């Protein structure tokens, strides 16, 4: 039931208009971070206030909302955000990726390919890909305007010199349509290829840092690399122990005091639907059999 003491989707209309204008400019200039007057939300900065504001500005009553954190629908912060929108927008919710019209995510892109008409909203902590190389906003803004991305390549190259390969495993920087270097939020680099040419609209919201950016559908997104060190979207060399999936991103779980480990899909909906379809992993039979 919608809470009548707040406006539809919590935000007042003026705030939504401001956010909507920022989203449209973000769509018009893919990968460019549009400043917006992020509001103080009733949840802490760093816990998805940017994503929540973008979702709130996009939702219509007919939407079906899915919220995931680390790929899972039932992690505490995902539960909390889903509940917020159930209460303030009264929208239907789902755990099934295919049924959702809007998906708010933290740190993952769902395994199942997204479709036209879906919107994926990312929660972003630090939207500036150059931030850890140059902490000043006044400087990084200039670097983006001049397309001066040498510093980023130097950093990646130094990684190679020191470690033999690029030492960035998540929030791996990308170049959008050959123009802006963009932070894809802290998704594992395994997810990076899904950013490019997606039929879905991807929106990124950073509340504390007051930035919104976007990837329209079918936008070309390239992970930065070198000819002799091509981008490698690797993941743990295991199959899911519950559903047997070989190509999904895995959580590592420590199962006993001796340090035994198992690997399970981080995308809980993907894993569940595979198991329902009869797929069984190394330890899945026992789990499914209820022994």
């Amino acid at each position, binding site marked *: 039931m919608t809470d009548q003491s*707040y406006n539809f989707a919590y935000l*007042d209309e003026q*705030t939504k208009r401001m956010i909507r204008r920022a989203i449209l400019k973000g769509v018009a200039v893919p990968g460019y971070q549009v*400043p*917006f*007057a992020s*509001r*103080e*939300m*009733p949840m*802490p*900065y*760093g*816990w998805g*206030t940017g994503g929540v504001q973008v979702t709130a500005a996009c939702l219509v009553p007919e939407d079906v909302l899915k919220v995931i*954190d*680390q*790929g899972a629908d*039932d*992690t*505490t*912060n*995902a*539960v*909390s955000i889903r*509940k917020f929108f159930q209460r303030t927008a009264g929208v239907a919710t789902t755990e099934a990726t295919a049924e959702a019209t809007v998906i708010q995510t*933290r*740190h*993952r892109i769902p395994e199942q390919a997204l479709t036209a008409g879906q919107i994926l909203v990312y929660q972003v*902590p630090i939207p500036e890909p150059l931030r850890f190389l140059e902490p*000043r*906003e*006044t400087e990084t803004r200039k670097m983006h305007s001049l397309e001066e991305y040498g510093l980023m390549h130097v950093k990646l190259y130094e990684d190679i010199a020191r*470690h*033999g*390969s690029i*030492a960035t*495993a*998540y929030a791996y920087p990308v170049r959008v349509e050959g123009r802006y270097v963009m932070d894809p939020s*802290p*998704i*594992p*680099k*395994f997810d990076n290829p899904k950013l490019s040419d997606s039929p879905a609209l991807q929106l990124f919201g950073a509340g*504390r840092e007051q930035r919104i950016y976007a990837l329209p559908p079918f936008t070309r997104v390239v992970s930065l690399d070198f000819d002799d060190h091509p981008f490698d979207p*690797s*993941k*743990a060399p295991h199959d899911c*122990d*519950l559903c047997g999936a070989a190509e999904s*991103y895995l*959580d*590592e*779980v420590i199962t006993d005091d001796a340090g035994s480990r198992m690997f*399970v899909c*981080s995308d*809980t909906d993907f894993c569940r639907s595979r198991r329902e379809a009869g797929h069984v992993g190394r*330890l899945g039979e*026992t*789990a499914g059999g209820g022994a």
Partner: protein
Amino acid sequence: MYVAVKGGERAIDNAHAFLAEERRGDPAVAELSTAQIREQLRLSVNRVMAEGSLYDPDLAALAIKQARGDLIEAVFLLRAYRTTLPRFGASRPVETARMACTRRISATFKDAPGGQILGPTFDYTHRLLDFKLAAEGALPPAAPTAPVPTSDLPHITGFLNRDGLIQSETAYDDIPPDLTREPMELPASRALRLQALTRGDEGFILSLAYSTQRGYGRTHAFVGELRIGTVAVEMDIPELGFAVEIGEVELTECETVNQFAGSKTEPPQFTRGYGLTFGQTERKAIAMSLVDRALRWKELGEDDSGAPAQDEEFVLMHADNVQATGFLEHIKLPHYVDFQSELELIRKLRAEALTAIGAARQEAAE
């Protein structure tokens, strides 16, 4: 057998119930009323109003009660509420020269028209725990009263200004920016900086100010004047064609007199720093005026000594305790996915490095 963790929703509900119970504490002890907080923990209420950017002692008291006395959490509650309020308009600038002062001191002149008023200050109390306060019930003896000054109290810096000894500020009628409605843009105007400082974390502003006193961007500040009291808030009502008083607020205002600037063509003049905060919050107001002054180095033709308090972007981007707390504490949220990606990477890099070291050793042995 492994069962994936479920039941996040129930865990959250239970945690909230536990929190409510802890907030109340021992039910054998009488419940604290918000009126008690408002009246007896007034300096907490003032700080929450100042950093919450909302002047409402009752709501601030409620926020403090709800936050179990965690003042940053209370600031957050007040801010989140403030965001939802409709804007009816803006008041006229408040006239602090017409402040009904409960406290007014100057460190630069022994006496001045209007006199020095110590007011309700801790300044000369001996910091000895007063065990009598532990026993409840006794009312303090009434404090002696003085007649309320009938005329305006002129600003001390005004006397310096009259002789041209202090740089004068140019008045302007532009509508000041509002960082709660527009994204922060750097470099910032002084008005925007002052807004960020007045709602900034007291501890952060205090430490920055202290650092300037110890030499990191020193400005030789004297408290020209510190005044605390109530001022009328007036608003223009277009339908009426004149301004009406809509209420009054308690403010602390601090003006510092700082080291002079000057050149071959300009005779030396003192410079100013300014602090203005809600309520009796004098530590914050003084600290704010020092940081304001340090940030003015460019406009006053001083050198950038690289001090933190001179660094506008550093100060403005890190002064907000609600932002800082949120981002700091978010690292306790699940990060399995990014951690896992690092875990895989470090295993891979170690394996490669160990192979390389092994090969080198073998080569050396051969």
